[in-house]
């Protein structure tokens, strides 16, 4: 515990270096920008910016990319409150009460409650991260290949459950992602797999063009097909500060949201979207006036907004301690770390303590900057929302092309992006989401490797996954997750019939 704090202070000295402050600020700014704009999420943005960060020192690069992720949580709420459109999927529930507050003429207080709850959550989450990370890294001593394999299976199942659409389609997407990750040269035998004779595929499919295709190009195709109405709230935003009474009602909600969010961020498959939904449900359930939720109550803004920011931060913990990305955005961060020669996992804390603690501490600074970026400059962000989509999507595609080309200076990656853009769009129309696919794609090589090792250690006995207690618990939890989701659906279908 005390260790965690002294390390955090050491991290703060890294984060406070001028260069890192600068990149933290850029990350927060870009994060707010893409958060405000619907149709561009953190996964696509990080994919676009990865090639640019090749030339930065690792700490600066990671600090910036992390800033984009939690910055998007701040920006997303602005659009939710003022336009009734979620800027990010994690701000869907903020639309419910945030937009109603704005309609009631309390847009200013809604915005500041969202920002201040996020700040509050962000600061507490940094402390929790330091404690969790220290604890989890000690737990990794008990983790062998079998446990890692089962943990990844659990994470993938959680991603399947969280995806919209049917469990079966999402499961199929996981298998496709795993299979695609094996394209290229097999590490242990040196044989080419599934390259169709393309030399460019011998290093495998690069995940940057894959993510751009699935998350940027496919998304644009979808938005062009059914354009969304954007009606920016007319009139002035007014006074930003909430009343004393509102402020008092927010504090317990923000606190609950922070803890719910922090915990759900830690789970494989978890993250801001899950966190914000859970926080809203809890706020509504324990409220003295649940019937007023959805008409503009402050608790419905404070809780989810605290939760999504907290989970965006704690989601880094499984990556930094176990090496397992828990959602697509964190998977992009894993890619960024690998590009900079840092293998995500328990060694980060011992081998690269400056990266580990610098990154965590930078979130304190980033959150402070974000409140300043978001509240006084709110007018700038609102005017951005007035840019029509027809000018916006060509710009995204320009960045994608430049980004895809710059990964290896190879046009082949642009073709990979086009291919997966169209495939991703078609799958999305058929209600098979790309999020489980990309997570599986990143975990694929790790899963194969740990499975191989577990089999070598157990001399080919597959019961090793159920005879080791931690592994068994994780697998049971995964099966439990599937059962909880399938059971009510079947019952409902039967009643409908």
């Amino acid at each position: 515990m005390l260790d965690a704090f002294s390390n955090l202070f050491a991290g703060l000295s890294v984060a406070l270096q001028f260069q890192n402050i600068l990149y933290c600020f850029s990350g927060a700014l870009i994060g707010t920008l893409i958060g405000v704009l619907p149709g561009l999420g953190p996964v696509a943005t990080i994919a676009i910016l990865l090639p640019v960060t090749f030339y930065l020192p690792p700490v600066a690069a990671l600090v910036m990319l992390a800033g984009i992720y939690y910055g998007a949580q701040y920006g997303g709420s602005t659009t939710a409150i003022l336009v009734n459109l979620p800027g990010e999927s994690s701000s869907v529930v903020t639309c419910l009460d945030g937009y109603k507050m704005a309609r009631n003429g309390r847009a200013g207080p809604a915005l500041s409650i969202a920002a201040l709850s996020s700040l509050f959550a962000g600061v507490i989450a940094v402390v929790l991260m330091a404690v969790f990370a220290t604890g989890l890294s000690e737990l990794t001593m008990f983790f062998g290949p079998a446990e890692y394999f089962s943990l990844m299976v659990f994470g993938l199942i959680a991603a399947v459950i969280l995806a919209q659409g049917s469990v079966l389609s999402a499961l199929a997407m996981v298998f496709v992602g795993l299979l695609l990750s094996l394209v290229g040269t097999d590490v242990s035998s040196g044989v080419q797999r599934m390259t169709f004779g393309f030399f460019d595929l011998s290093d495998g499919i690069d995940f940057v063009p894959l993510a751009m295709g699935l998350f940027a190009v496919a998304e644009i195709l979808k938005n062009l097909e059914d354009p969304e109405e954007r009606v920016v709230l007319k009139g002035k935003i007014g006074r930003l500060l909430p009343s004393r009474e509102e402020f008092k009602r927010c504090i317990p909600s923000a606190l609950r949201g922070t803890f719910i969010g922090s915990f759900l961020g830690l789970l494989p498959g978890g993250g801001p979207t899950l966190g914000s939904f859970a926080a809203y449900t809890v706020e509504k359930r324990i409220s003295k006036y649940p019937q007023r939720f959805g008409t503009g109550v402050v608790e419905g803004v404070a809780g989810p907004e605290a939760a999504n920011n907290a989970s965006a931060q704690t989601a880094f913990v499984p990556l930094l301690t176990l090496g397992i990305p828990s959602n697509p955005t964190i998977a992009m961060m894993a890619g960024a770390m690998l590009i900079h020669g840092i293998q995500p996992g328990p060694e980060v804390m011992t081998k690269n303590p400056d990266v580990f603690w610098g990154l965590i501490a930078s979130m304190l600074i980033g959150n402070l900057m974000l409140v300043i970026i978001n509240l006084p400059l709110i007018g700038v962000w609102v005017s951005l929302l007035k840019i029509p989509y027809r000018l916006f999507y060509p710009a995204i595609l320009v960045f994608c092309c430049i980004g895809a080309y710059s990964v290896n200076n190879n046009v082949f990656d642009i073709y990979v992006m086009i291919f997966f853009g169209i495939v991703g769009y078609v799958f999305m129309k058929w209600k098979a989401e790309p999020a489980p696919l990309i997570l599986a794609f990143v975990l694929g090589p790790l899963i194969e490797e740990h499975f191989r090792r577990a089999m070598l250690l157990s001399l080919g006995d597959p019961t090793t996954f159920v005879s080791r207690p931690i592994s068994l618990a994780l697998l049971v939890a995964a099966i439990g997750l599937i059962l909880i989701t399938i059971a009510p659906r079947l019952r409902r279908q039967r009643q409908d019939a």
Partner: protein
Amino acid sequence: MRLVKSPNDILLAATLLAMAGLLYWQVSKLRVGTILRMGPGYMPTILCGLIALAAVGIIVRSFFFQGDKLHSWPIRPLTFIFLGLLSFGLLVETFGLLVAMPALVVLVSLADRDSSKGEVAALAVAMTLFSAGVFVWALRLPIPLWTAG
């Protein structure tokens, strides 16, 4: 009452089956090995099987659960986004960014019916100048600007 309740699911499953078949054809010659000594074909073969299994499950489901009507496909956005991105890929190394970028912006802008000529031209110029200035000049990404001559 139609027999197939969710026709889109049939298409999804057919695509998945085709994908699994195609990739299986690619790995079928690789050594599969045993669970203790996994060959390079071990995991891919299992995964192709799992994809096929999921596809069969989706087909079975489409007979029982109601889904949407068969989707129509928007030809215009698909065509122009595809052509725009493809032309950037084809042009960037042969002619350079100064040719590829305007081609990309103009073609993808045609995907939206509402775009006007003046606006697209202005956007093409702005994006070309911006990417040449920021990515090539300031960030020094090795992208050819102009390769003619």
